[in-house]
Structures are given as structure tokens and as C-alpha cells.
């Protein structure tokens, strides 16, 4: 049924005209912003409307890969391997995807100091998951990935037929980075992943709700939510390194069903205006869906 809805929406001139306008807007933004590349995917759960702009292009995932790790952690919870309140030893020592050499997450490169302060102690899985998403803790991320395993995350993605998320390693693995072993995502892949969670089909309604609650706790709000009305809630995950800036999430307007959006951007290291570009795209999508919802 969803495919039929999408086809009917695609044939609806209101939607196709709006999509054309948005595509033109993105082309202009891509030229004017200084970004090397933009990738955008949108899925509206209210109408079935789907929009794609360079949505199959691969980008370095940066911290958006934490969405996949979140899915893997909840897969482990779903299977009864761990509980949300299970405790995990906080240790800052991981094995590189290249040669197994040990590496650490540098405290001064991590947005979250709380997890580093707990080294030698234990934190709950739910606490680590919150730190991984809300403040993008790299240490929490590697601890969780180390616990559930890369295979579990990859199998979780395969279970939901999510092809546009390619996880190969943890974060801050410089040796792997130097060897070109990186996590990659497409805008379409992130929307597929978030769509599963937004539809509350990720293992169970209860576990999906728990994941959404973590995504709602996001503290970096200069991207997708920045130019949306205050009443709009956004459950999302950002990602940024020197050459990319991303944001992907589920947007909940107050009076309609949510839509899922991923905005991926690539820049030269000195490029500026990243958050503003993401916020602009997010605002354009919001306006488009508001207009077609109102009858164009």
C-alpha cells in the first residue's frame, strides 16, 4: 500500500510542482552556499510524499552513524542480550578496524565530558545511549558499539532493508580513517532508518518510542529545527567533521503526522554557513509540506 500511495502522490500535480520548486531551490542553494554537495531526502508519513535530491550519493557519515548504532543497541535490548538499565564499564580503549591497534577517544575532541569523568566506573546502557545521541558522545558511542558488536548493527540495518547506511567501524578511529575505512550514509538511507523508528516498527512500539525519546533530547539544534516554528518538535541526530555537516530527523508539526528528513552536506574544510544551509533546507521542506497540505 505505501508504494501505491507514493505513486498517486507523485502523479498529483500539486506535489510534483512543489517538488520541482524545492529542487530548483536546492540547486540554487548548492551553487550559492559554497557547499561541495547536498543530499536531501524527505518522506512524509501523512501523505506518502517522497522527495529525493542526490539522495543516493554517499557521504562520510560523521556522527549520523550513531543512528545505526542506536538501532543496533535496541536490537540487543529486543533480543534480551542487555537491558536498558544494564551497567557497562566505562573504559577508553578500543581496537582500530585496521590491524586491531588500540586507540582512545581524546577527551578534548568529545562534546561530552560526563562519560570521560566516569572512566573506571559504570554507566547504564540507557545513559550511554542518551549521551551518544543528545550530546553526541564519541566515548559512549564506541562503548556501545564495542558491547553489541559491528555485526549486530549491520544485521539490524539488513533486517529493515536499509541499504544507504554503511557502518564499518567506531568513531575517532584515526588509523582506519587514514586507510580510507569510513562509515558512509546516503540521505535516502538515513530517511529509511528514521522512517522505521518514526513508524514505531523498530522491534516494537515501546522500543521505538524509547529511541524517539532519545532523539527528542538532541541538544544541537542549529540545523533542522533552527528555523521551524517553536511548536514543531524534532527528534534528530546531527553529524559534523571538517568536511561534512549533516542533520537527519523526524519532524512533528503540531497539527499533522510527522515527516522524515535527512540533509547531508559536504564542504571544503574552511567552508562556512553549514548550519544555516541545513536550516534553510529544512525550512523550505517544512513550507512545501505545509503548502501542499493546505491545497497548494
Amino acid at each position, binding site marked *: 500500500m505505501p508504494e501505491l500511495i507514493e505513486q498517486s502522490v507523485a502523479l498529483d500535480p500539486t506535489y510534483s510542482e512543489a517538488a520541482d520548486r524545492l529542487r530548483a531551490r536546492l540547486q540554487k542553494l548548492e551553487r550559492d552556499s559554497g557547499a561541495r554537495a547536498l543530499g536531501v531526502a524527505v518522506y512524509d508519513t501523512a501523505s506518502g510524499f517522497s522527495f529525493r535530491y542526490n539522495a543516493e550519493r554517499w557521504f562520510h557519515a560523521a556522527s549520523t552513524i550513531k543512528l545505526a548504532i542506536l538501532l543496533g543497541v535496541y536490537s540487543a535490548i529486543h533480543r534480551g542480550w*542487555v*537491558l536498558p538499565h*544494564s*551497567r*557497562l*564499564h*566505562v*573504559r*577508553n*580503549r578500543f581496537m582500530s578496524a585496521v590491524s586491531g*591497534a*588500540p586507540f*582512545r577517544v581524546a577527551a578534548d575532541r568529545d562534546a561530552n565530558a560526563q562519560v570521560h569523568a566516569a*572512566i*573506571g*566506573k*559504570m554507566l547504564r*546502557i540507557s545513559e550511554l545511549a542518551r549521551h551518544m545521541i543528545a550530546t553526541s558522545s564519541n566515548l559512549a558511542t564506541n562503548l556501545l558499539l564495542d*558491547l553489541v558488536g559491528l555485526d549486530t548493527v549491520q544485521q539490524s540495518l539488513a533486517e529493515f532493508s536499509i541499504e544507504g547506511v554503511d557502518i564499518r567501524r567506531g568513531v575517532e578511529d584515526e588509523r582506519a580513517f587514514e586507510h580510507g575505512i569510513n562509515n558512509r550514509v546516503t540521505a535516502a538511507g538515513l530517511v529509511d532508518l528514521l522512517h522505521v523508528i518514526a513508524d514505531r516498527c523498530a522491534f516494537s512500539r515501546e522500543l521505538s518510542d524509547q529511541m524517539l525519546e532519545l532523539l527528542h533530547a538532541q541538544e544541537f539544534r542549529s540545523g533542522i529545527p533552527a528555523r521551524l516554528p517553536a511548536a514543531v518538535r524534532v527528534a534528530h541526530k546531527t553529524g559534523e567533521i571538517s568536511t561534512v555537516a549533516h542533520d537527519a530527523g523526524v519532524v512533528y508539526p503540531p497539527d499533522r503526522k510527522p515527516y522524515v528528513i535527512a540533509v547531508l552536506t559536504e564542504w571544503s574544510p574552511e567552508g562556512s554557513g553549514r548550519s544555516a544551509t541545513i536550516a534553510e533546507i529544512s525550512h523550505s521542506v517544512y513550507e512545501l509540506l505545509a503548502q501542499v497540505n493546505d491545497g497548494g
Partner: protein
Amino acid sequence: MGESYHFPLAVVDGLRLEKAVRDALKPGAIVRDDEGRARRLPRYFYEIPSWDDAMRLKLTPDFALWEFIQTDVREAEALRAFPRYVPCAVTLLAPSLQRFREAVGSFVHIAANGGYRSPSHGVSGNASPHAWATAVNIYRIGDTFLDDREAIERYAAMARAVLPGVWTRPFGWGRGLTDDHLHLDFGYVVSIPRDAPADPAGVDPEVAVAC
């Protein structure tokens, strides 16, 4: 003759515990160390009724029992619930650590998974002395994180100076080395308190469980 001190925890024979617990503790079983040498795991354990008991029971002026039994989700499931069990040698380890704490003059933080952990714990390697309750991992002393050569080697030298026979894991990044904590251990010491239960069959327990 003075009144004898009554240690508040009961000594239990690991071979008489329920199967799930027994399977995880492997009492008296033979395991191999990194060199392939056979080492026999402890058979007798103190039974800890509750976390409150572990919190209340001071083994030395500065160390309570709970500090030696903190384990994470990778511990065997049967051993995560109370009553829990710790090899009787923990009462020999604690005074040694107290001596070390007095020598360094600051708080000594035993890490999670860094006191006793069972041989079934997910991070227990070959014949890890942690499964004898004769080893500790220390990530922090006072406000100093032991995560570089200087800190690890300085405190390792202090430990060797005050604890005869203690083994400290050398600093380094490879197998059998440590780069992010201080590891102290006294080897494969087995303690059988005087009030440990007798073996009803009169069989050498170590023969009975040899595998």
C-alpha cells in the same frame, strides 16, 4: 583466650550451589594461563546476601566489600543477582590494598570489572587472577587517572615497594601489557577458611572436579 571474631559472611562450597551459578563460577575447575599452565579455580566462596551487605561490610578501614565485586553486563547472568559469591581470598587481598592505599596517601579506586570477576565474565581471559579475587585494576588514584607510562610505572613501583611478591602488569600497548590502568595481583592464591564446609564424600575436591 579472647573472644573470636565472627566474620559475617557464610562460607559456601561452590560445588553445592545451584547449577547455573556453579556453571558460571566453575569451582575447582582447571583453566590454563597464558603460558598454558594449569591453574585450579577457587572452590570456596563467601556468600553475599545483598548489595546492602556488600556496602556495609568493611574489609579494611578504607575498603568495603562492594568495591571488589562491581561487575558489568558482561558478567554471567546467573552471577548478577544476589546472593552473590566471591572467592574467600578477597579477605587477603583487601589488607594488601589497604597497605598500598596508605603508601600512596590517597583514594585508590578499584575499577568496575577490576576486582573479582568470574571466569565466565566476558572480559576474563585465560586464568585471570581476577577470578581468584587476588587482583585489582586501578584506573585512578586520588585525582590522577593512570593512563600514561609515567603514572602507571610510578604507582607500580610504589606497590612493589610495599607489597612483597605483588605482580604489576608492565606498561605497553600489546597483549599482556597495560596502557590505561594499574594492574596488581598476587597470583593464584586459594583461601579455605577454617569454617569452610567439609567435603562429605571425603574425596579430594580437586580430583573430583578436575577436567
